[in-house]
């Protein structure tokens, strides 16, 4: 994999676009769509670390998302604490779970890791849906109206937008930082060929564990952000398999294993989801899902590497043309 020339100008423009979006598109609904997009981008970028870069396809990342979502609301429900208090605890719990899951399952190869993650996530979902301490099938709620800023319960969507944007920036910065470091080369080597990487002295299990841990931390944070923003979580919205699948679809759509792939995937999928549901949802004809699913099918058929790959290819072609002209 060749390192592509990065341009600070592009990054600055992207950042500026995201920063001014809420000022250009005013109104709580547009802000809410923006927030949903950012959340999806954070979760998919977090998944991308282990699923994209390291090539370990987890279809059970909802287990970390759910822990991230449940813990802050559980602390609020039990003790009336600010949801902020639960976020670090959720991170620690997610790390523990990542170790517990990773040590046995990361030794598996091929589809077995994916299957193991699905099984564990479903197990946790079933457990949570019958455990009344965590709200069982009904779920948990956050504060309806904030007692102060520390409850992170705002009437306006704007604070959420900028908090989420900052977290997305952090996730992308961490990902960009390891891309060009030893860890980044290790994970890509493992993805390209685990046995070959091992024979060259890459500490395979350790590297995979690190990738899973880093991914779990950010996924857990994404879950916490979801919970404070929505003020509610139940087994389906926290631990449901659709939560995991959405991360995979978004990352794959944009380009798994690329820095901006998940962001691009979320940028297309979330507005598409929202727009189709808003235009057609009220009719109740189910057309929403047909169009949404159709677009995913088209991309999977014609551009299975994700849209970032399409972009690289188009650009490479253009360069060759320029070279030929010169």
């Amino acid at each position, binding site marked *: 994999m060749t390192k592509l020339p990065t341009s600070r100008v592009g990054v600055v423009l992207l950042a500026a676009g995201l920063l001014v979006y809420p000022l250009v598109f005013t109104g709580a609904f547009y802000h*809410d769509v923006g927030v949903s997009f950012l959340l999806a981008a954070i979760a998919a970028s977090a998944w991308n670390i282990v699923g994209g870069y390291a090539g370990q396809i987890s279809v059970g990342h909802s287990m970390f998302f759910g822990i991230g979502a449940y813990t802050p609301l559980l602390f609020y429900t039990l003790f009336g604490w600010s949801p902020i208090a639960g976020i670090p605890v959720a991170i620690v719990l997610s790390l523990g779970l990542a170790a517990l899951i990773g040590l046995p399952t990361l030794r598996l190869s091929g589809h077995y890791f994916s299957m193991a993650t699905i099984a564990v996530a479903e197990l946790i979902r079933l457990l949570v849906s019958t455990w009344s301490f965590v709200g069982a099938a009904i779920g948990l709620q956050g504060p*309806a109206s904030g007692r102060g800023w520390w409850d992170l319960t705002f009437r306006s969507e704007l604070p959420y937008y900028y908090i989420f944007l900052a977290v997305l920036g952090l996730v992308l910065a961490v990902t960009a930082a390891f891309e060009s470091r030893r860890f980044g080369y290790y994970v890509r080597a493992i993805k390209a060929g685990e046995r070959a990487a091992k024979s060259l002295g890459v500490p395979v299990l350790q590297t995979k564990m690190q990738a899973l841990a880093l991914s779990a931390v950010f996924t857990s944070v994404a879950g916490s952000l979801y919970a404070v923003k929505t003020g509610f979580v139940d087994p389906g919205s926290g631990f449901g398999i659709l939560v995991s699948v959405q991360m995979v679809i978004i990352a794959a759509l944009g380009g798994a294993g690329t820095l901006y792939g998940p962001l691009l995937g979320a940028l297309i999928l979330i507005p598409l989801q929202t727009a189709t549901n808003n235009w057609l949802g009220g009719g*109740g004809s189910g057309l929403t899902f047909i169009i949404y699913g159709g677009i995913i099918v088209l991309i999977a058929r014609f551009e299975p590497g994700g849209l970032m790959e399409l972009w690289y290819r188009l650009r490479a072609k253009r360069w060759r043309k320029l070279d030929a002209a010169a």
Partner: protein
Amino acid sequence: MTRSSLWLAGAVAATVLGFAAPASAANPVRIGILWPLTGNAAAAGQASKAAVEVALDIINNPHPELANLPLAATGGLPNLGGAKIEITFVDHQGDPSTAQQLATRLVTQDKVHALMGAYQSSCSFTATAVAERHGVPFMVGESAALNITGRGFKWVFRGTPIASDYARTYMRFFAEMKGQGKKIESIAVVNENTDYGTSVSDAIEAEAKKSGVPVAIRIPYSASSTDVSAQVLQLKQRQPDVVIFISYTADAILYMKTMRNLDYRPPMVIGDDTGFSDPSFVPAVSDVAQGAMNRSAWDIGKPGSTTAKINEMYKAKTGRDLDDTSARNMQSFFALAEAIDRAGSTDPEKIRDALTKTDLKAEQLMMGYQGVKFDNTGQNVLAATYLIQLQGKQYQLVWPEATANAKLQWPMTGWTP
């Protein structure tokens, strides 16, 4: 990476340009309704949507033949100069986060004067929180979770009965039966073990304790069980006078058949709606569960009655009879419209005020409630339900006696002729 990043930045703007701002008409009353119109619970959402569209026709157009219903005789809302009601339906797909987003859209973009929804309790939780933050009245048409009301919200009202209302109805029924000399000294509760079954049987146990007819045995089970003989044998051993089932469809049918196979016939079986109301229940068990009771707040009634006329309108639209869930949503919608009319304004504060003063009498309703009156948590305290009994190949309304169209058979005959 200049171009790719640039393109990304541009796409942020481009992809959201499509959302059009909705046009606002002169002075209609706008109500936003959130339901699951696709997904798992789509059938319930679609049926309720059709029911509310019938209610909308009744309110917006003159229907003198339904004059006992408020707002039916006139076209539109008389206190608002005959203003029509406009509904914006949205589909939250059963996802609490989508429900939150759509509630935000309805309040801030569509500028609705009131909201209604949201069927699944999870979606009602998040959608009502939006209404509360923005100060818009929210009518919960039908959601089971107890604490949707009672969270200290000012703007949330619920027209439908909840588990404790059903439990109280059962107890009133038992008291009346005892007054008639029937022996009811112990009851058994058999419940499926998720959210629904657990909360209903908790409520029954609490009410039973108060009324002095203790729950002798409570049997939780998993609705996906393929064999319930152990549970039925437990019942057979304890010999309760009444068995209340809180079950989904397949398990309800399985219980009725297993009871026949093990030759166990209690004096009475009561099903708590859901499985017992499923269209496939009656054909599957009518030869073994004669006399089994069920609850429903909706009854089609005699030909020519208001409810029968409403049912005809619904049937003309959908080809089906109106069901209990949709009917309860429809009634909640009528109550909301009546309050808006009484408020004489679309000001949210005035609508809220009118809702708190709602006092509909039983004869002004299409449902078997004793009335509609909200307590300070927003819950309708006069909500109640009818009891129906499987006689032959269909359910007949048997209690309360004043409205009954068939005589209660006690004990149940089951499979015996």
